[in-house]
């Protein structure tokens, strides 16, 4: 309802206005040629000045500034790129150095280990050799002693039996007869006494 009233009033006043306008106006002022030449003149002058000042003084400054910024940004990007590449190379170098050193350390370790192992082996061998020599010597001595022992035993047996007889019966018995008996006995029972 209110809307309707609004629109009607607007429409009516628009009609009034057009009537009033038609009554009092002498047409569009734009079509009145009185000041055309003046407008052309002033437009040419002001636009001319505007164009000359803009094109000669102001726009070159702006474009120059824009270009400087562009080149600066490009330069910055370039240097950043360069530095990034450099740092990447440095990282690679660093990694390489670390790798190399690791390998070196490993090699040293291995070498030293081998050396030590060799030494140990050598010493072990020497020790083994020494020990086996000693053992051989000892064995030889034992063998010698073993070989010699029957004679000595025979001797001791002869002497003791001599002494025994002397004390038992108080008679000096001939050494040679006793020894013959002892030898005979020992020969018979050699395997019994010295058998291993």
């Amino acid at each position, binding site marked *: 309802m209110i809307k309707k*009233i*609004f629109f009607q*009033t*607007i429409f009516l*006043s*628009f009609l*009034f*206005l057009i009537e*009033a*306008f038609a009554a*009092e*106006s002498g047409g*569009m*002022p*734009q*079509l*009145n040629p*009185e*000041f*055309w*030449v*003046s*407008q*052309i*003149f*002033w*437009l*040419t002058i*002001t*636009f001319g*000045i*505007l*164009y000359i*000042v*803009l*094109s000669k*003084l*102001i*726009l070159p*400054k*702006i*474009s*120059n*500034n*824009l270009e*400087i*910024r562009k080149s*600066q940004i490009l330069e910055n990007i370039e240097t950043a790129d360069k530095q990034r590449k450099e740092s990447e190379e440095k990282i690679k170098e660093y990694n390489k150095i670390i790798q190399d050193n690791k390998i070196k350390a490993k090699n040293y370790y291995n070498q030293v280990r081998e050396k030590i192992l060799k030494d140990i082996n050598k010493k072990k061998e020497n020790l083994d050799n020494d020990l086996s020599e000693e053992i051989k010597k000892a064995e030889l001595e034992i063998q010698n002693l073993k070989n010699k022992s029957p004679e000595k035993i025979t001797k001791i047996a002869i002497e003791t039996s001599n002494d025994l007889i002397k004390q038992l019966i108080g008679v000096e018995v001939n050494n040679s007869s006793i020894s013959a008996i002892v030898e005979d006995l020992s020969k018979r029972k050699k395997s019994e006494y010295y058998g291993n």
Partner: protein
Amino acid sequence: MATNPMHQFEVHRIGPEIKIGAIDISFTNASLFMIISSFAILFVFNLGSKKKSIIPNKMQLLAELSYTFVSKMISDTAGSKAKPYFAFIFSIFMFVLFCNMFGMIPYTFTVTSHIIVTFMLASFIFIGVTIIGFIKHGLGYLKLFVPSGVPVVLLPLIVVIEIISYLSRPISLSVRLFANMMAGHTMMKVFGGFVISLGIIGGWLPLGFSVALTGLEILVAFLQAYVFAILTCIYLNDALNLHH
């Protein structure tokens, strides 16, 4: 009753009458607003180009954004060959834009609402573009009126139409701007008049319209400047790169 909505377009003399011979070149309110617009442009862009910092301040940003906006518009429509005419198109765009915008301030005079002004601007463009075309292509520029791939029978008709359309360019260019500005300002004046004549009871609706129209007119002011500039670019493109 409301005042005449066409009253705002009247040109009147400011100061004494200046005459060269029989020609009247008196300083008028139109001249005043042309000068104000030009000075405003120069002021803004001078301020915007003074400092040369890598990170721009507000004025510098404004100037540089306008610069790149216009330069992108030119390179998009007319290609890289149009670069020497950048300053001219930039001046045209800024002049029309500032005249339109100054016209939006109440009690000011809208320079671009006068057919003679817009027609002169369009004529600068038309004459300039025609001269450029003839310099670049010689008489070959006349090929513009002869589209390729048209049957020979139709050719006389097409050529006549092409010539008429070419010659009507400054008229269409100027009338578009002039009519838009005049219509918009007249409408605003009419609605403003309604607010007064309908009073406190009925004046609210036209007031709302008036506010909306102000927003619309600001948009139109920018849009018409843009259209003016981009059509200039298109005409320039025709002159620089003969497509036909």
